[in-house]
């Protein structure tokens, strides 16, 4: 199928261009007239926010890389140089370091949205799984980025996390040596982490592109969780959702700005302003806040290999939930039994695990960590399949635009 694309732009120059390379028509189809369910709430902002956040990270990151020196002897000093001597270097670095936190906040809310409204269910299984791949890439990128300032927490965090691979039977220690590029975390480790930290965001951008392609094939889910029945259920993406996303982006930028300008170090660790010292272990080696729940799962298991398996399993289980959830109804609004578990118990267990991860594993924190871990896996592996079988969902509306059930019934379902 060759031949020029039938563009309909009035401007002959634009028409000439677009009929040969129809990216303008494509943009218009996917972001202009793209039919979008008309009942999105503000939870549907977070995909756009994540895209904006990724762009901010890449732009600030590219400029930081121009001034950063990935040499183990100079890395710490070069970050000080960026903060003190580079014009607006402090702004670049604080935007980048707090941008990582913002990215995880946005993506965690985006995932919660998907879980609550059943956005992972058929036909959106692959769309969800691509999202989990994005999360994994984000985690790897954030971890390696945190190593680059070469402070104490950078160094010891890298040591602890890479050492996890030594739990692999037989080849574990060889794998760790291979990852380090030596017999301890050192200069080669820093160099390769810098290289990968620069590469992975672009891989991530590619997967984000696939994520959006898959989204535009299946169309978006919506708060009712029912499929779009016809044109009456949808609105063109522009101007309706461009204007609604813009509101979200502004609010997001306010939160981001407050962090960057008034509390730029509040989410970091003081220890990372001390240069890396292989001979002095910090009192507590704590990962960044966005890894704390997973760190808590790791430490809640007394066996190292099993702990590592559980930690990676906590992400791996997300790949399987399109099939673990046996309910035919997507939105938790219409699932009275499941709703409190996904809306309250699951977030509560993750906050509990986050708190546990920030404390050294002793006393009350050990049983609390085990309770949180047990619930996390129980939720996905037992509750999801089981509740889908026994639950009697509330009646679903006929369509997005003409709900047959009375509005009051919907309201009651909302306030359960």
């Amino acid at each position, binding site marked *: 199928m060759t031949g020029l694309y039938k563009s309909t732009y009035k401007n002959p120059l634009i028409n000439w261009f677009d009929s040969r390379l129809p990216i303008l028509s494509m943009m218009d189809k996917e972001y202009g007239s793209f039919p979008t369910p*008309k009942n999105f709430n503000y939870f549907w902002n977070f995909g756009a926010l994540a895209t904006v956040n990724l762009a901010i990270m890449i732009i600030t990151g590219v400029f930081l890389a121009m001034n950063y020196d990935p040499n183990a002897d100079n890395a710490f*000093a070069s970050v*000080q*140089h960026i*903060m*003190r001597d580079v014009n607006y270097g*402090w*702004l670049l670095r*604080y935007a980048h370091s707090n941008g990582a936190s913002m990215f995880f*906040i946005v993506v965690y*809310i985006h995932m919660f949205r998907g879980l609550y409204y059943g956005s992972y269910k058929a036909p959106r299984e692959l769309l969800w799984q691509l999202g989990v791949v994005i999360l994994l890439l984000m985690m790897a990128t954030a971890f390696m980025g945190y190593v680059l300032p070469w402070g104490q927490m950078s160094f010891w965090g890298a040591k602890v996390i890479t050492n996890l691979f030594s739990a692999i039977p037989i080849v574990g220690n060889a794998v760790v040596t291979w990852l380090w590029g030596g017999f301890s975390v050192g200069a080669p480790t820093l160099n390769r982490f810098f290289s990968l930290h620069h590469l992975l965001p672009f891989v991530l951008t590619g997967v984000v592109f696939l994520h959006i392609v898959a989204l535009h094939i299946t169309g978006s889910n919506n708060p009712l969780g029912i499929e779009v029945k016809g044109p009456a259920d949808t*609105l063109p993406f522009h*101007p*309706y959702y461009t*204007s*609604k996303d*813009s*509101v979200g982006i*502004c*609010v997001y*930028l*306010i*939160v981001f*700005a*407050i962090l*960057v*300008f*008034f*509390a*730029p*170090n*509040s*989410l*970091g*660790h*003081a*220890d990372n*302003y*001390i240069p890396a010292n292989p001979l002095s272990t910090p*009192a507590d080696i704590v990962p960044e*806040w966005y890894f*704390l729940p997973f760190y808590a799962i790791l430490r809640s298991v007394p066996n190292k290999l099993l702990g590592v398996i559980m930690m990676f399993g906590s992400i791996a289980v997300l790949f399987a939930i399109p099939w673990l959830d046996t309910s035919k109804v997507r939105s938790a609004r219409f699932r009275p039994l499941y709703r409190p578990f996904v809306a309250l118990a699951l*977030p509560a267990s993750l*906050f509990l695990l*986050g*708190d546990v991860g*920030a404390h050294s594993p002793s006393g009350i924190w050990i049983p609390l960590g085990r309770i949180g871990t047990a619930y996390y896996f129980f939720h996905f592996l037992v509750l999801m399949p089981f509740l889908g079988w026994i639950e009697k969902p509330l009646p679903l509306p006929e369509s997005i635009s003409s709900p047959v059930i009375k509005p009051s019934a919907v309201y009651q379902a*909302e*306030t359960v």
Partner: protein
Amino acid sequence: MRAARLAIMAALFGALLQVPAAHADVASQHWSFNGPFGTYDRASLQRGFQVYKEVCSVCHSMKYLYYRNLEGNDGGIGLSEAQVKAVAASVTVDGGLNDDGSKEITRDGLPSDHFVSPFANDVAARSANNGALPPDQSSLVNARDGGPDYIYAVLTGYTTPPKGFVLGDGMNYNAAFSGNQIAMPQPLTDGQVTYTDGTKATLDQEARDVTTFLTWASNPEMEQRKRMGVHVVLFLVLLTGVVYIVKRKVWADVH
């Protein structure tokens, strides 16, 4: 329901900020640089610099700062160009080899020089300090949980050890320091310095002034950052209002 959701989101975000804010137990002090509109007290910065120069810098380096950083009120501690030149000229820096390469020379410092460190390297520093390494002070305030409050607590935390407390050889008792044993002897006492501006040099005054100076050294961009932040947030709040009105107008015909 919507309000409840917003409240939950706000609570979650608040909780996120709370987790790492769990500092060591030090009393919080009133500082001129606290809060979103906080600025450094220039007189206190200059007195603090005097304390740093006469006391701290005998053992502690501050190697990421330049003498030129001290100049002016916009990001500096308020010294004039001539004063900065005089401060820099009072130190001797390594000048490399002489022209025919036969001899190592030294020269007077320039504003473009980094702060001169008191010891040639860490080994020399440990050797002169009973085996302990005085940490570099460039980012010391950022590198300690509790920041300025903690630094102030340590400087004013020297007391006689409680009965039965066994101090290590050459160690000193400090109420704020982790483990209560600190290698640094009490650096500040009443009258440790004689302030050039006539301020009475009590221990409390010296500790406050030098903490202010150290906070500036760690965050010289703070005033510019907060000033810009106020503008940015105000602009974004206005923009949010405008964008929200546009959104309402666009959505007015949707039911």
